[in-house]
């Protein structure tokens, strides 16, 4: 059996996995995988003001006006009821554990989990691209980078700035980047580090380790460059709450996305006051 490239293919193979005694699919971060990267993978606009890049004033979420994402969550809800999709809450580990135990056949998570999975997985495993709906026009575009960022604050003495720059240089050197890439699955931030891993034969030894880089290198579109929104931690919490309510049957997909947009917009408006 081949891993699905599209969600249409998933619909074909999921019942077979279920018949073989597996929960076919689980994921570990719904707002990140099924909202932010879903929108990017399908080249859909997430928020006004060019996904927030043009400023905080008046930025509004567009989720409830995006049929593709609502259809996706309706499908997830139906799969969940049919035993084709496992939802174990918003905790990362609660969803990863059943995959490690062999209860779940396919799991969506971070490339940064790769190093840990190599230690914890009993069965052999590999990785592939995040599936997309072939039926959505323009779908199949790349995902965008995630993770944390390092910031150097202004107003520091020159000597400290030099030290900071040296430290950043050290962190982004090919050797350090390759070391992290190999140990954790973290995607290296420079092509020099990527080349170093290639010439070292790392991807011959661990082909799955290259998938994250390849997925990020897929052709982009107008809406695949990421997002800029304030109080986004709270917006993600609203999403997780509403998604939990969808799967426990307390709300409908339509109503959930209406609430996410409303409360998300209120949070964005609050944040806009700080940027005024």
């Amino acid at each position: 059996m081949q891993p699905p490239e599209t969600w249409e293919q998933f619909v074909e193979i999921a019942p077979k996995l279920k018949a073989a005694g597996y929960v076919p699919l689980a994921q570990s971060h719904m707002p990140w995988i099924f909202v932010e990267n879903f929108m990017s993978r399908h080249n859909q606009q997430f928020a006004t003001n060019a996904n927030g890049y043009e400023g905080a004033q008046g930025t509004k979420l567009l989720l409830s006006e995006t049929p593709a994402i609502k259809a996706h969550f309706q499908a997830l809800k139906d799969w969940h009821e049919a035993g084709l999709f496992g939802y174990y809450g918003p905790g990362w580990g609660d969803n990863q554990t059943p995959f490690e135990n062999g209860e779940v056949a396919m799991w969506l998570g971070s490339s940064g989990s790769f190093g840990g999975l190599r230690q914890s997985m009993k069965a052999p495993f590999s990785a592939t691209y995040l599936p997309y709906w072939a039926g959505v026009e323009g779908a199949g575009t790349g995902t965008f980078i995630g993770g944390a960022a390092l910031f150097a604050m202004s107003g520091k003495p020159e000597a400290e700035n030099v030290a900071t720059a040296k430290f950043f240089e050290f962190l982004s050197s090919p050797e350090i980047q390759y070391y992290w890439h190999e140990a954790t699955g973290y995607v290296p931030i420079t092509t020099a580090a990527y080349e170093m891993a290639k010439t070292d034969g790392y991807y011959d030894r661990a082909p799955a380790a290259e998938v994250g880089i390849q997925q990020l290198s897929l052709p982009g579109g107008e809406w695949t460059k990421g997002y800029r929104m304030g109080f986004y931690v709270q917006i993600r919490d609203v999403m997780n709450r509403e998604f939990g309510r969808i799967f426990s049957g307390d709300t409908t997909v339509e109503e959930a996305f209406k609430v996410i947009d409303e409360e998300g917009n209120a949070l964005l408006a609050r944040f806009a006051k700080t940027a005024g």
Partner: protein
Amino acid sequence: MKKVQFNERWTPWLLLFPQLSIVAVFFMWPSGQAVLSSFYIEDPFFGRSVFVGADNYVDAVTGSAYARSAWFTAGFTAAIAFFSLAIALALAVSADAVLRGRGPYKTALMWVYAIAPPVAGLIGVMLFDQHIGPLTDFAALLGWDMQIGVDYADTAVAMTVVATWKQIPINFIFFLSGLQGIPRALKEASAIDCRSPARRFWTITFPLLAPTSFFLLVINITYAFFDTFGVIDVMLKGEPGNNPVSLVYKVYLDGFRGQDIGGSSAQSVILMLAVFALTVVQFRLIERRVHYA
């Protein structure tokens, strides 16, 4: 008796100084800061503050999450106070009636008090684990498909059970010493007058325990409000999602996790006033009916 009068003007202040400085540094100062920052909204990144008047208060109480959290906190507090007091009282009455081997019983019942709330939370996480939790398995035997972290009500039940369990020992200690403070003569007199132990308990013992019960009620409500933080934090595993959170935990979520200092401060000021009002009500209404022997 000779009345001693201190005439020094400054000595009392000197003696009070350590206590007053603690109140000033750990209560007055942070409370003042909270009130002040509740009128500002702060950029989480560069620390720029904008005065927004009462906006933080309006946003806090009109958000749908706030009402949900307030209702949960009310129910959670009532359940913890009721169950931990009732169970502790039943255990104390039983332990008081034990004649032989009283020591081991008492020790066994007090033991749990040594457990810190986050550790209790961790034990709860294991007992109620979706995949391997024995209490989840037990609930499944009764036909209840418990899903902690997924189902709102299930998580609420699990949190209440763990928080109640953790609080029973201290209530037990106080009830037991309260029972032992009841004069023997009174118990014997009532035993002569009335044959029913249940009736004797409700008419003699329970009213005599009222000062203890009132004290414990105040302590338990404070516990449920504030000290359950560790239990909730550990059981949520960092993601509130569709799970119940208490008002105190929400202050933390918005302030420290969400970097919304102004909104979080407004919530903590509201909470401070609510607890103050609750304490006044307790002392005015309930304490009046408490009979101090």
